């Protein structure tokens, strides 16, 4: 263990934390803003720190603060106090653990050493996800049961039945994917997707295995308890479902756990079907070989993007009254954007003029891949939010019908089809 390996491990853990836990407030914000825009409303736009609103992002932090400082109330009917407190911890931890094996970038080679770029350097890959996604349901079931409340219990029962039935379809849909990729290791899977199909199409999972992708995405929605599969929560019929009795940070853990689980599901979907950390047509090898050109492109692209963003910002980031403190924000942000642009361009220019070595190329590639992964993750999360504010909730029997009668046979058929193709064509 030298200083490089330790720092890489620390960076990995920080990245994993950022992508899962740090993403929670951002996801909450996305959820609210997107919901607002989809429904022709504004969404959060009021909360500010000295005029800085960041488009309402501050509200999420205010919310978190509120959850931390609220009274942690426990109804007198709750007899299993220990399990009541344990439940949100289980949900949170298992959601968090699932995220830990997602690779943010290709294996980083520094000198002779190779580092896994994931939170926990375990190469159990997909199985790990299945295992801990399955465990998170205990939190929901325990929470509902310990609440000693009929609505909560109903929510738990629904969650239990839902997870059992959707895990089967999820596992089966994964089998065909794994047959295609020939590995359960996520890095292998992503690198497979870095190749090109017929020489010009990126061999992304969504293109090679569209059916498995659809089934997996649907079941991932169910595993993450997101609409249209959030019958465990079902506020219109079950008040709040399993978390009816929860308040303050114990509810907060459920709340954050849901977003972390959503993030983890998104990460796995991205990794399995959307090329993971790869930019299309630019796999690790290509990136490393043409790193100078890529960096130069960034030097041009960044100011352009910043220009359009600033224009949009000045148009839209306004407050009702003139002279309100919130109206100063745009100018301030504009200065920050200019500063970042200058810094990045100067830094990159300086570096390019010095010439890029192999280690530098590798690190730059890793940074680009991490950003790619982050953007893909955010887009996938956006899809989760988008679906939530479009589709209505399934009725319970419809949900079971879909799981057992449609998704599972389809997944099995897909396995047979994939296996046949693999055996016949020997791909």
């Amino acid at each position: 263990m030298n200083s490089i390996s330790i720092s890489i491990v620390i960076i990995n853990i920080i990245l994993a934390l950022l992508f899962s836990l740090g993403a929670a407030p951002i996801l909450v914000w996305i959820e609210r803003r997107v919901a607002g825009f989809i429904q022709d409303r504004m969404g959060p736009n009021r909360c500010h720190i000295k005029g800085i609103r960041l488009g309402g992002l501050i509200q999420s932090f205010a919310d978190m603060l509120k959850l931390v400082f609220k009274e942690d109330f426990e109804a007198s009917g709750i007899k299993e106090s220990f399990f009541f407190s344990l439940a949100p911890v289980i949900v949170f931890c298992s959601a968090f653990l699932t995220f830990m094996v997602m690779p943010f970038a290709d294996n980083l080679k520094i000198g002779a050493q190779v580092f896994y770029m994931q939170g926990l350097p375990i190469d159990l890959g997909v199985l790990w996800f299945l295992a801990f996604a399955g465990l998170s349901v205990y939190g929901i079931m325990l929470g509902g049961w310990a609440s000693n409340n009929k609505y909560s219990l109903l929510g738990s029962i629904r969650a239990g039945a839902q997870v059992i039935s959707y895990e089967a379809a999820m596992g089966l849909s994964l089998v065909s994917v794994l047959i295609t990729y020939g590995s359960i290791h996520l890095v292998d899977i992503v690198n497979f997707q870095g190749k090109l199909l017929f020489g010009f199409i990126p061999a992304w999972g969504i293109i090679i295995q569209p059916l498995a992708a659809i089934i997996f995405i649907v079941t991932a929605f169910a595993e993450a308890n997101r609409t249209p599969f959030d019958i465990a929560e079902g506020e219109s019929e079950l008040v709040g479902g399993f978390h009816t009795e929860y308040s303050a940070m114990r509810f907060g853990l459920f709340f954050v756990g849901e977003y972390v689980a959503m993030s983890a599901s998104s990460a796995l979907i991205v990794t399995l079907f959307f090329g993971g950390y790869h930019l299309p047509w630019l796999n690790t090898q290509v990136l490393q070989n043409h790193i100078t050109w890529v960096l130069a492109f960034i030097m041009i692209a960044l100011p352009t993007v910043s220009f359009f963003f600033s224009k949009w910002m000045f148009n839209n980031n306004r407050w009702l009254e003139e002279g309100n403190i919130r109206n100063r924000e745009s100018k301030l942000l504009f200065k920050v954007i200019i500063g970042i642009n200058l810094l990045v361009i100067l830094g990159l220019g300086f570096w390019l003029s010095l010439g890029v070595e192999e280690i530098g190329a590798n690190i730059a590639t890793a940074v680009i891949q991490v950003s790619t992964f982050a953007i893909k993750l955010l887009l996938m999360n956006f899809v989760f939010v988008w679906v939530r504010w479009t589709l209505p909730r399934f009725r319970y029997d419809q949900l079971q019908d879909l799981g057992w009668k449609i998704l599972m046979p389809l997944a099995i058929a897909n396995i047979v089809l994939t296996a046949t193709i693999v055996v016949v064509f020997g791909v």
Partner: protein
Amino acid sequence: MDMIFLILSFFAIAGAVGMVLAHQPVHSALSLILTIIALAGLFALLSASFLFMVQIIVYAGAVITLFIFIIMFLNVKEANLPKEPNKNITIFLGFIGLLPLNFLILKALYHMPSKALVLSQNGFGEIKSLGMELFEKWLLPFELISILLLVALIGAVVFGRKEEG
């Protein structure tokens, strides 16, 4: 290694004891999960990494979940639980009764040649080597098991169906 082993076995046994002693079935099931997960840890310690995952996915993730689901689904009232006034005494007596048996078996096993159980390298216990072994040498039992699973599935459906009339 030793420390991890001791901690995991402690949790496994504690969970098992809790399972037997608990009055409520839900408590029993939750204790059993503790045992199952601790056992999964022991599997990992024996470098059976695939079994570790299978134990968690199948046992903890599916079987016990189903179990707790059924317990909640039946929503057994306190009054419908069996009365077991002498439970603790019978359990204690059972332990006393089983002590000699344990002693005998362990005594017999004690003379097996000792060898340190270590984490193995190069893919021992991983999915690939296990799969190779399974589909080369154990194909027939594998198929039989799958037929058994099918039969169990059909049986469960037949049992669970609403009775006519």
